[in-house]
């Protein structure tokens, strides 16, 4: 166990040494990787959060529930209780046929027509503000409410939902595209840096090979170098993101007030803070594995 720890700490020291021996090259590579990572990470972050930004395409959506005309009071009370208990419902407003008629009467041009009606043709209505904004959640709530007794119709603001779905789809695709670009840039940068390091240390690699070091032992410092590049660049990207969010929030206060909508960008979640360096570290480790294996084989064969 001690030998294992010793071998790994030596490899870690060696990897840091590789980074620090060429500080400017390492720093440049890290900065480029960090900036490449910032954009997809920001898009991913926004996509995961329901912020005022995701609602800028339109008003907050609502559902309108119409009871049947002959629905008894018990059925209306039942729907009221269901809505009050549903965690997906943020708030709702119950509008009786009389209240609805009164509102319509104030609309210009309708007063005379409505006076000729023998009875109130309007049903009892609920206007519902949902908590979740994802189109799938809205559809699911609509279907659930339709199953309530004496409910004639539940109308969802389809246009809004489709608009939001389209926007989310676009953001997701954009985020994937940027992530792909980051991936390609990272693969090239890490592959190249690791290859350079192996070539600079080919004498050491050969000595280790001749003395019977296992492939794992020879590769280990280069794998750690790759992971280090990934983790450090991800941490730098997180730092840039935090600064970006903080800067944005400072400037959106006034805009939020004017639009009466919360445009504040939420802070990074613990999950994102943990996941990003882990994923970047793992990816770079894999690239370093490919690069170091390929280059070490060439060095050992003497073809490098």
């Amino acid at each position, binding site marked *: 166990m*001690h*030998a*294992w720890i*010793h*071998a790994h700490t*030596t490899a870690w020291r060696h990897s840091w*040494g590789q980074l620090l021996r060429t500080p400017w090259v390492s720093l440049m590579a890290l900065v480029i990787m960090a900036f490449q990572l910032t954009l997809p990470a920001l898009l991913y972050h926004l996509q995961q959060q329901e912020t005022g930004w995701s609602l800028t395409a339109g008003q907050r959506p609502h559902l309108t529930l119409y009871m049947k005309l002959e629905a008894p009071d018990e059925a209306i009370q039942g729907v009221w209780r269901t809505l009050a208990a549903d965690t997906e419902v943020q708030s709702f407003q119950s509008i009786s046929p009389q209240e609805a008629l009164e509102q319509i009467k104030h609309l210009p041009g309708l007063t005379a027509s409505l006076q000729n009606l023998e009875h109130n043709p309007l049903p009892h209505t609920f206007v519902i503000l949902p908590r979740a904004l994802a189109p799938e959640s809205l559809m699911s709530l609509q279907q659930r409410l339709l199953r309530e007794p004496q409910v004639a119709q539940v109308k969802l603001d389809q246009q809004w939902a489709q608009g939001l779905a389209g926007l989310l789809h676009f953001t997701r695709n954009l985020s994937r595209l940027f992530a792909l670009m980051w991936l390609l840039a990272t693969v090239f940068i890490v592959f190249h840096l690791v290859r350079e390091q192996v070539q600079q240390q080919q*004498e*050491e690699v*050969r*000595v*280790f*090979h*001749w*003395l*019977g*070091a*296992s*492939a794992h*032992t020879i590769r280990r410092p280069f794998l750690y170098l790759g992971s280090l590049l990934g983790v450090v660049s991800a941490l730098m990207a997180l730092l840039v993101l935090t600064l970006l969010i903080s800067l944005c929030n400072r400037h959106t206060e006034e805009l939020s007030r004017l639009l009466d909508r919360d445009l504040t960008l939420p802070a990074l979640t613990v999950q994102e803070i943990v996941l990003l360096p882990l994923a970047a570290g793992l990816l770079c480790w894999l690239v370093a594995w490919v690069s170091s294996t390929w280059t070490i084989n060439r060095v050992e064969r003497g073809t490098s």
Partner: protein
Amino acid sequence: MIRLEALGKRFSPGPQALQGIDLDIDSNAWVLISGGSGCGKTTLLHLIMGLEQPTEGKVFLQHQHLGRLNAQVRARLRANIGLIFQEPHLLQRRSLIENVALPLELAGQFGRTVHQRALQSLDLLGLSARASALPSQVSSSERQLACIARALITRPSLIVADEPLARLDSQNAARVSGLLRSRHSAGGLTIVQTCAEDCLTLPEATARYTLSNGRLAPSQPSAS
């Protein structure tokens, strides 16, 4: 210990470096292989150590056919061989003592005992005073002595030495020869050593061969 069967090596593109080599080396033997520069001595040693693959024939090391072993097993076998190269190959960022301790480190040993053994190994070759110097701070001869100390530190049962004395002055050459002789006479050590054409006088050698035009032929001790 070592068996070579119809061994041949052709570099592509290039000439046939070795051909039709049959050789049996028993345990405790001291085999000298001489030959002119570029005759294929180093290639032969590389084949014995599994550092290169033959284009023809087979190499058996400790009863194992190297061609059938994967790189990992070949590396493990190599870890038990003391290797001395013509050129002093050392890790430039490590001190002499750290270089000498490397085989033990690769075997999973570290700490004070390893340091002591490395120091003793350097001391045998008169290098203990330069233990903490970097390879770039010592002479070429001292670097070669450090390589020899590194080869001896694990007390291997096989030493493969490629012209180990070529870079040494007469005093250090005598010291290294004496050390190899005492290790060999203590038993349990096989040595395969290459040397220039006029070095077949070593009395301890149990077999002498000459390598010429890629072929190996038995040789008689030359008059000193």
